[in-house]
């Protein structure tokens, strides 16, 4: 053989190798981009259930699967329970159930590594299931958060178990890890959120504990306010501020002396001046808590009147923050229709008429309109349980 031919042959082989490497790199890059995009998608979910749903969707882009079940791990029973299902036929259901029963899934979860089971109709785990070669297999993808088992994704795939390469499996593993981290985040987020709501409830409860006549008052003002805000098609964060603002609108009453707060009969002018300070006192209290400070305008101005004759600042019309205008209607209606130191409860119908009468005076007509629209719902709603003081 001509030594030149030999050299040319060698060069050609090198070129082939380089092309293969290049192709491999290109594929890796594409996979990385895909992985990045999918991880971002999963990471964007804030709630536990949203992460789980997204995980099932996102997996579809990486592996073609016929059906899937997402199991959550129950630490106390050391068992897995189905939480989400996708396209599960009765025939597949038998197989998923068998994998639970014979301990395969819990075993797989403990390994913390993806495994593939052939659905070949052989072996103890298919007992009672029609024996047949299906050419199908099951991908068991454990989901861990900080090394602790959270759940397991079981996917029925239309290909043989031996056909997955290590890269396929590690790609799925990376997504499952991302899901684990996101689930942990969602749990933390939900826990913090719950704490936040609990603290607000506890604060609202503190006022009710002092002012015996207003038990449940804050809860009702909050729920009427939310109904009005919904009717006005305001956005969710705003509706939520009305909800919490309603719960906390009278928080400043904590600072009002008992003799004035629970005085039977009318307040003197002097006493009323003291009573009026509850708006500013409440605002001052909330201002000190970063996560509650956005409620300050609602609490401070909930006694302002549309005609400018309210307190503490005598703001008028649209200068009064919208949330405060809503709470003013909700608060007034609730007060009219409940027993107070200074009056007996009037009927809802009477309350509605009073609100209508004061539209454009004490109340913003736009809000009165929204209130009229939800009035039926409000009075039709079962009363929250009322304890006798």
């Amino acid at each position, binding site marked *: 053989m001509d030594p030149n031919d030999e050299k040319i042959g060698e060069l050609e082989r090198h070129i082939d190798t380089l092309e293969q490497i290049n192709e491999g790199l290109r594929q890796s890059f594409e996979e990385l981009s895909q992985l990045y995009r999918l991880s971002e998608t999963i990471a964007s979910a804030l709630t536990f259930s949203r992460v789980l749903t997204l995980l099932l969707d996102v997996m579809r882009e990486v592996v073609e699967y016929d059906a899937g079940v997402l199991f959550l791990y129950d630490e106390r029973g050391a068992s897995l329970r189905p939480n989400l299902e996708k396209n599960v036929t009765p025939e597949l259901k038998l197989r998923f159930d068998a994998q639970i029963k014979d301990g395969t899934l819990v*075993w797989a979860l403990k390994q913390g590594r993806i495994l*593939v*089971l052939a659905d070949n109709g*052989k*072996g103890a785990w298919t007992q009672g299931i029609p024996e047949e070669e299906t050419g199908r297999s099951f991908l068991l993808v454990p989901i861990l958060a900080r*090394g602790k088992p959270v759940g397991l994704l079981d996917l029925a795939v239309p290909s043989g178990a*031996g056909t997955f390469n*290590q*890269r396929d499996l*590690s790609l799925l593993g990376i997504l499952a890890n991302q899901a684990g981290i996101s689930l942990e985040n969602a749990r933390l987020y939900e826990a913090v959120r719950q704490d936040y709501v609990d603290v607000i409830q506890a604060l609202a409860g503190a006022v009710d504990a002092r002012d015996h006549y207003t038990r449940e008052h804050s809860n009702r003002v909050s729920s009427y306010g939310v109904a009005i805000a919904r009717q006005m098609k305001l956005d969710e964060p705003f509706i939520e501020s009305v909800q919490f603002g309603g719960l906390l609108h009278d928080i400043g009453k904590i600072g009002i002396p008992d003799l004035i707060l629970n005085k039977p009969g009318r307040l003197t002018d002097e006493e009323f001046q003291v009573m009026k300070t509850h708006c500013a006192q409440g605002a001052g209290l909330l201002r000190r808590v970063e996560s509650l400070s956005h409620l300050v305008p609602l609490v401070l101005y909930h006694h302002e009147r549309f005609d400018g004759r309210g307190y503490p600042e005598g703001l008028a019309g649209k200068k009064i923050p919208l949330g405060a205008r809503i709470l003013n209607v909700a608060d007034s209606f609730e007060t009219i229709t409940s027993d107070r130191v200074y009056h007996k409860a009037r009927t809802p119908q009477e309350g509605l008429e009073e609100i209508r009468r004061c539209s454009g005076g004490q109340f913003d007509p736009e809000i009165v309109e929204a209130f009229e629209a939800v009035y039926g719902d409000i009075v039709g709603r079962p009363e929250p349980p009322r304890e006798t003081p």
Partner: protein
Amino acid sequence: MLSEAELNKALTRYKDLPTLPDVVARVMQIVSNPLTTAEDLNQIISLDPALTFKVLRLANSSFYGFPKEITTITQAVTILGFNTIRNLSLSVSVHKMMFAERERGLFSYRDFWKHCVAVGVCSRILSRRIGYRNEDNAFTAGLLHDIGKSLLERVDHAAFLSAIEVSRAEKRALWQVERDLLGVDHAFVGGRLAEIWNLPHELRLAIERQNEPSKQGTADPLTSVVHAANQICRRQNHGSDGDFGPFDIDPGAASLLRLDDGALADVGQKLEVQLKEAEEFLRFSRGS
């Protein structure tokens, strides 16, 4: 203290280092390729029926505890993982080459293998404690940590035995006596074997640094695991490894593994239980 260069020079005495059988060498190679499928691995391992048989028997042992029967190599790979099946093939093969049953005077390969299995099991327990990501590598690193001793024994039986004698008489660590008498020690030789056998890098380091885990600064997790497992198994008299030196655990390794007295007691208990599950690994020292 011997330098790396001096150790290397001494190693030239052992120039014909044993090589892995072709099948296992190919297994080591293809598992490092991410595009390898379970079916690819099956095709290679199945070329060796004896290996296939042993790997399947180990895969079905209670050490792995899979609740159903595993009947093919493909299944073993998809269920236990590429890494585990590579490690099992390697262990079966290395055992056959380096630990085959024989009594050699003071040195019993039977007791020696028992020690190695115990260190493997203990390494797996320690690696789980610290959430080490690859517990099967920990097991294999423990199982194979002393391959260097087999080589030293095979190349110069008399010299190796006298090293054991000195270690016993003077209560000195065997590796230190080996350096004095042979110019190399089993950890260094083991590291070289790991290198030419293409063992994963972390396994090689663990074998090479097992006796001095903190020598290079901070102890790495796998080395610390193997080091501590070795000392624990020596204290508890699981098998024997020809070493009569102190039982101390390197402080760096102990703190990395958070090994206090309570932890040691817990590890010891788990070891007793899991050694029973690992019986199959002892059994293959008795032929097929």
